[in-house]
């Protein structure tokens, strides 16, 4: 690293200092406090508290549902982003702001409304129950809530990239005799690939940490529909701060590894 090298832009030292201070105060310090907490349990204690069947089941549900929700949000978000950018239709402005609603809505409100809709006596729930589909108070409910909160991340990440996507590349493909599907598959999707991956990562990360909207619709049954963040809260209520922190660190490390892998993949994608 050559920090001393003169940059064209002035104020490098000042801005770097501010950035580092800010990151330390807002991100690193709380994380350090979290990471320091579990050690009072000892290594074996931490291992023991993380390998209980109930904890494993909760982690499986949290990461599984978040990954599935993100996987569903990617094609869905692509479709919505594409329509928003490429087409002009009445009510577009309104639809555009509706997409941000899951971000603005307090998550508890989202959870309560989703539960009211999907409960066996709710508007949608009442239609699904005769078909044998139960959404509220099952792992499926967790998935629905995570799709809801994750969607805006994918759409908002894709939109600017689609705006920048040169339409002439598609037109050139068409004049060279490519079918519509071929254009989509060989021209459009590869250009969007890295962003799709990034959107997947953002939706996944959000889903793993989501608490407010999920606890209302999940049913919270141990081993079945109990998410990892709820287990953290339960441990706190039992005044087991170290156990809660251990689980917190575990979710953090897992998320970090997954996001790192996605980043890698993204870079490889971008190079090819």
């Amino acid at each position, binding site marked *: 690293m050559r920090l001393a090298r003169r940059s064209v832009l002035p104020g490098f030292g000042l801005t770097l200092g501010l950035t580092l201070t800010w990151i330390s105060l807002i991100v690193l310090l709380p994380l350090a406090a979290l990471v320091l907490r579990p050690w009072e349990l000892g290594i074996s204690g931490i291992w023991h508290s993380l390998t*209980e069947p*109930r904890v494993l089941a909760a982690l499986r549900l949290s990461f599984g549902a978040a990954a599935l929700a993100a996987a569903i949000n990617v094609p869905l978000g692509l479709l919505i982003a594409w329509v928003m950018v490429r087409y002009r239709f009445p009510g577009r402005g309104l639809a555009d702001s509706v997409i941000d609603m899951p971000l603005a809505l307090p998550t508890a409100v989202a959870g309560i409304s989703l539960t009211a809709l999907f*409960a066996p006596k709710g508007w949608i729930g009442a239609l699904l129950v005769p078909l044998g589909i139960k959404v509220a108070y099952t792992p499926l409910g967790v998935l629905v809530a995570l799709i809801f909160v994750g969607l805006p991340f994918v759409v908002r990440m894709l939109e600017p990239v689609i705006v920048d996507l040169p339409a002439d590349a598609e037109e050139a493909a068409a004049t060279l005799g490519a079918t519509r599907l071929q254009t989509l598959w060989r021209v459009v999707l590869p250009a969007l690939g890295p962003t799709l991956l990034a959107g997947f990562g953002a939706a996944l990360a959000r889903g793993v940490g989501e608490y407010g909207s999920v606890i209302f619709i999940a049913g919270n049954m141990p081993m079945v529909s109990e998410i990892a963040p709820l287990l953290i809260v339960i441990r706190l209520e039992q005044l087991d701060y170290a156990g809660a922190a251990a689980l917190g660190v575990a979710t953090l490390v897992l998320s970090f590894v997954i996001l790192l892998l996605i980043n890698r993949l993204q870079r490889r994608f971008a190079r090819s």
Partner: protein
Amino acid sequence: MATPLLTRRAAIGAAAGTIVATAAHAAEPTTLLNVSYDPTRELYRDFNRAFIKAWKAKTGETIVVNQSHNGSGASARAVLDGLPADVVTLALAADIDALAKRGLLAADWQTRLPDNASPYTSTIVFLVRKGNPKQIHDWPDLLKPGVEVITPNPKTSGGARWNFLAALAWARRQPGATDASVEAYIRALFHQVPVLDTGARGATTSFAQRDLGDVLLAWENEAFLVRKEFGETDFETVLPSVSVLAEPPVAVVDSVVDKRGTRKVAEAYLQYLYTPEGQEIAARNFYRPRDPAIAAKYAKVFPTITLATIKDFGGWDKAQTAYFADGGLFDRIYVPGK
């Protein structure tokens, strides 16, 4: 400008006044913070009004009483993390014990006031839908096929722990009961539970507003409140043959009142709960009064049931480890093959 000068002079005067006069006749009224659990909102709203009036009549001092409500465990944790509660009025002794263990109040707190420091009691009852369509009359009826039981999670809710103990009390009193038969009953009971809310109010909402389940295991006071709020026509209370004597305890938090100088008023506040006025307010809010005269007056509202006490389970310390701590009976219900 004259106004700021005036206020500054008044402030200096007030400051001097507090230094000269030892009695706390400062410009700022004394405040008291009562940290409580979920279903007591209505009770303490009424009680605070009465106490403020009584304290004014006795000492001439006007005070302000603030309330904070949450699940009992969450409230205890908030106090532990620094919420300056002058008094705590929680759902179970274990939560105040947790504060005592960490030095916030004396270990003998439960002997400092009469009746285990629990000025009022309650019990656990069944709330069923109108006409009792599933014919639920006692604990074994909860295991009937197709009956869905609503109770919050005992890990997070004090009320749910009393529910759990009430079920245990019944199972243990059955002829020929063994540890295995008791565990089998609890296991079967929780397999009828479709949702575990984190607190008593959440469970009440699931049952009363979302139409979930056939029977709600609830605080007696909460069952009365639901029938008052949602109309007498929709729900019925069923009294099981055996239940548990729930003793929600109260205590002055020593470390807070000594720092804030509020010990006198905090102690008077809790003692007022034991006076006929305090007992009357508790009874009106559907808590069972301790005072025999008031209890006799409300005998029609609170029928007699056979009640087990926490002593039957060896006290909270033992009950907590055996049933609710990690690896306890409640955890074992859900872990397969253990």
